[in-house]
């Protein structure tokens, strides 16, 4: 009895579902088993039950011996597609691991390629996926890591500081030191004035962006009426990459969120990207007692162990015309994908990416989540639309950025050596003449509710901003020419200034405390009144404006209850400063180290964000 018949016999699928699966298989080229297990028809547990009832046994395969010569004749793509792979030749037969022992296509391939009869060993599909990626994935993982570096070394963060940058930094340090030795007072005054003025200008720029962005807060990039015109059959295949690491607790939540997406099921190509050693999450997927709606891709071990590397690897298996990334805990607006397709249809060809807004579902959990919500609200609701309006490079958010697949590959995809690969990609796209748009759709994430976890995450972001700034400022003149003066200044003030303001902030605060609170005489002798006046003015006005920008954030989202928390922004910024110094330290000693953010710490449950 064939596997489809077996499943119908056991009542796990109906005859009409079988027809549907076979039709889909013929149309897409996907194997029957892939569709059955990854498109929500049956759970892996039931599949196992069916096969066991039919007398099959599942062999443990992870430690199985293999012959490299045998493996060299099969490509990972094919093995992955058929969920099967040959291991070695024994007794003049090819030992073959198969999740679907009736896969005639694969059996014919074995006979034809090796000119021997196959001996089938039935194994769990996820075990075969794991093994095939591990044994056959080297070429792909190398490509994921080094492709950008080979194709476009100037844009790869594999080198953190270039020689001219190091010379510039050391010359600057030398000049400051000489200045301090020759005239300590005047040099200190100059540094103070430059830093405090820079602090204020950077914040005024943020306010300006927020105001520009807020002007269009009611603008609907895609309206409800436009959404109604969308026909499901015309929708293209949409790839969703889900890079996860040790997120076993979130797998069920993830499936619920994905199932809620309003997009034709067969047009979705969802890839759960797991690291080779992440057995926890793999076991969680194995043990699911309800049907999954994603395919698992195992990313073989290779340094650096970063999210962009996983995404680049997943790209090799993606089938979609469009592609997006979500985190495990993300809850996108249910109509987000359709909106994106509609907007891509309206926008000129140079738009290769659409960024959705991000926000938090657990905003009222504690002080940190409230502050984080305020920050994300002004960032995604005002700042990014502001950048968009002014045609300044947009640093993409970590998730929910939707790409045109072909252009993403052309750009060299994500830089695995950059820890804010998203921000880097946004700038790179601009530098290549492409544009990024913003859409009126939100993905709700889990705000970090634990201070140390928050600092870890933020230090990575700030380090990534530093990396991105260093990468794109290797040749400032070239950057100026490619993205124009507006883009250049915007890039400088948005990407470059962000880490600097956080680094400068505690210093200014120190002056303020020393001068106003403790009234230290030393500081008065070092700095004349006008310098102290200026730096305190800059600090105070900077803080006030930043508080105001935070306050603005509550309006679009109607989070009125959060408005007073904006006053705590100076404290929140101190946390940023801690993270910035940590990021700076890591930039020097371990630039590619990916500070993992723990998810699933929130106690808040949020229903799927159904858009009516």
């Amino acid at each position, binding site marked *: 009895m064939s596997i489809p018949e077996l499943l119908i016999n056991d009542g796990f699928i109906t005859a009409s579902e079988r027809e549907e699966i076979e039709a889909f298989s013929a149309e897409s080229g996907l194997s029957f088993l892939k569709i059955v297990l990854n498109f929500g028809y049956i759970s892996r547990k039931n599949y196992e039950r069916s096969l066991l009832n039919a007398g099959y046994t599942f062999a443990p395969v992870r430690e199985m011996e293999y012959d490299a010569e045998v493996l060299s004749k099969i490509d990972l793509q094919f093995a992955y597609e058929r969920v099967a792979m040959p291991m070695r030749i024994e007794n003049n037969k090819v030992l073959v691991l198969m999740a679907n022992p009736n896969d005639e296509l694969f059996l014919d391939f074995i006979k034809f390629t090796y000119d021997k009869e196959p001996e089938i060993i039935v194994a769990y599909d996820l075990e075969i996926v794991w093994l095939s990626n591990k044994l056959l994935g080297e070429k792909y993982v190398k490509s994921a890591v080094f492709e950008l570096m080979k194709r476009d070394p100037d844009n790869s963060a594999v080198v953190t500081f270039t020689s001219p940058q190091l010379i510039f930094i050391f010359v600057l340090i030398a000049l400051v030191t000489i200045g301090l030795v020759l005239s300590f007072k005047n040099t200190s005054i100059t540094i103070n004035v430059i830093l405090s003025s820079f602090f204020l200008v950077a914040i005024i720029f943020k306010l300006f962006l*927020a105001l520009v962005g*807020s002007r269009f807060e009611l603008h609907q990039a895609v309206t409800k009426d436009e959404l109604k015109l969308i026909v499901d059959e015309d929708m293209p295949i949409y790839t969703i990459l889900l890079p996860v690491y040790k997120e076993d607790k979130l797998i069920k939540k993830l499936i619920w969120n994905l199932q809620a997406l309003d997009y034709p099921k067969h047009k979705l190509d969802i890839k759960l990207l797991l690291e080779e050693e992440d057995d926890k999450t793999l076991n969680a997927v194995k043990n699911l007692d309800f049907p999954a709606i994603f395919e698992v891709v195992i990313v073989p071990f290779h340094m650096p162990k970063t999210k962009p590397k996983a995404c680049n690897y997943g790209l090799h298996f993606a089938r979609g015309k469009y592609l997006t990334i979500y985190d495990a805990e993300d809850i996108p607006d249910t109509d987000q994908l359709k909106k994106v397709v509609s907007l891509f249809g309206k926008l000129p060809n140079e738009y290769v990416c659409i960024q959705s807004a991000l926000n938090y579902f657990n905003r009222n959990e504690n002080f940190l989540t409230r502050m984080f919500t305020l920050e994300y609200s002004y960032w995604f609701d005002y700042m990014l639309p502001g950048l968009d309006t002014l045609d300044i490079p947009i640093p993409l958010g970590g998730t929910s950025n939707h790409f045109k697949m072909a252009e993403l590959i052309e750009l060299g995809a994500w830089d695995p050596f950059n820890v804010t690969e998203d921000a880097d990609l946004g700038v790179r796209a601009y530098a290549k003449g492409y544009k990024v748009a913003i859409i009126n759709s939100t993905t709700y994430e889990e705000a970090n509710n634990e201070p140390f976890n928050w600092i870890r995450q933020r230090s990575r972001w700030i380090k990534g901003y530093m990396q991105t700034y260093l990468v794109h400022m290797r040749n400032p003149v070239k950057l100026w020419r490619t993205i124009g003066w507006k883009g250049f200044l915007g890039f400088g003030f948005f990407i470059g200034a962000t880490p600097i303001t956080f680094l400068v902030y505690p210093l200014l605060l120190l002056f303020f405390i020393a001068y106003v609170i403790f009234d230290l005489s030393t500081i008065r002798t070092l700095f004349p*009144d006008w310098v102290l*006046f200026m730096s305190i003015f800059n600090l105070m006005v900077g803080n*006030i404006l930043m*508080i*105001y920008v935070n306050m*603005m954030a509550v309006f679009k989202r109607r989070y009125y209850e959060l*408005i007073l928390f904006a006053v705590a922004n100076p404290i929140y910024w101190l946390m940023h400063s801690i993270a910035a110094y940590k990021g700076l330290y890591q930039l020097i000693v371990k630039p590619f180290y990916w500070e993992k953010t723990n998810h699933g710490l929130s106690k808040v449950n949020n229903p799927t964000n159904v858009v009516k």
Partner: protein
Amino acid sequence: MRISKSVYLLILTGILVIYYLVCAIYLHDLGYYNQESLFYIEKAKIVFEGLGNRLKVMGLTAPITPFYAIFVFTPFGYALAPILASAMGTAGLFYVMASSLLKNLKNDFYLWILLAMFLFHPGLIYSACSGKGIYMSLIFFFLFFINLFKFYKSNTTFHVSIASICLVTLIFCDYKFIWLTLFFLPLVLSITVHSLKLGEQESIFRLYQSINSPSLRRKLVNKTFSLYIILFALPLVAVLCYKLLNLTHASDLNYFNESPYATWNVLVDKLSFDAQTAGGNIKIPEISILLSARVLLFCPMIIVAVYLLRESTYQVLTILTPFALIEFLHIKYDKVYVGYQYYLLFIVLAFLCVIIKHHTVKNHFAFKIMLGIMVAVQIGMGGYYLKTSSIPEEKNFVNILFNRTDDDTQAENMDVANYIASLPGDQHILIDDATAYPIVAFTRDIRPLIMPYESSFLSALESPDKYADYIVIATAKNVLTGYTQLNNKYIIQIKKTIPQMDFRKVFETKYWVVYRVIAVR
């Protein structure tokens, strides 16, 4: 070739600038000055030509925005800078209003009406040619309200934030506008009640419903509070910071508002108080409620504005807040006459309402005729109010403008300044610019002057023989004699303290005496 509307508007504004400049320079040649412009001239001279630490003068002179505005024009001469600023600024106000008008109205009639007002309204000419900072208050008042009305329409954070920023600037144009925040309390509540999604249409019932439902009440409170914060947090915090700067640099929170060294109207207001208490001439029209009636007479267009907004309670409340403001100012500063600039606010506001609400008018022909008549009445009333103003400066302006006679109010100050200018360059003159700022404003070179902003002033005051060669003293007849240390009593006192020092009168006018300091050995 057809010119675009914006170019057309720029040409009109240019013509207006020339017109204002001709009037202003003509008045200037007739010798017209006022306390505010003289104060700005003097402070600007200190900033650009003074010696020593000028940070306090630069940072704490109030109102700060009109003061800074004249900096741009100082290359054309200190005396001309304030009038150039006010002429350009008033034309700028026209441009801002007219561009909003063109965006909203297709009919050129309204533009001509606006232009007529800017050409002929004596109040607007006063704003343009006096060198005062009125124009700036009017610009930001207009921008504040237009953004508020835009917010009502669009409900975007952008407009409410811009309104807030305009209010900050408005407060730094005239500190008294801080009180607007007080009268916006009920208004903000009314806006929030209006924005709640309720079936009930009547405002009072909407309020009743929202207060009686716990969830709506929470929403109402949160939203009202948030709106109030977003609108007024910036102005209030800006004022707080400014006060802190005053505290750290002048050891007085209210230095900018209460010190005659920081602002011109402290002494002017005190004089107004003296004139009122000494003369017993209480001005009947400046009585609460009657003041609002005076506004209605001055600007009947405001009635049209109320009519246009009649369908929305909170919008009517919006244009009633300036009434509340001037009534409040009259009560709070009861010994000070309400300045002409506060009446001008209503002209700007009324026109704004016409711009944004004219589409609700059914009979445009009748509306235009009515508007034309009202503008004519307003021009007439504008002249009448200036002519009968209780503030001498305003009255003086209109007299000089219409009679074209020389103004000799500053003649004495000019004489003293000329005398100082005739002294040898290495001589030092002790002078207190709290009261003598007009003299300093007319003085060609201020470097020989020892003034309170300089650290040597106090020492010079204690021992003038060591620091100064001359002292400028206010005579007993000078109404400001009580507000300066350098008066007749100072001479007597210092002679007692330092017997070996003597003073010789070298120049004298009715209000000022210049003494030469003589050390007797």
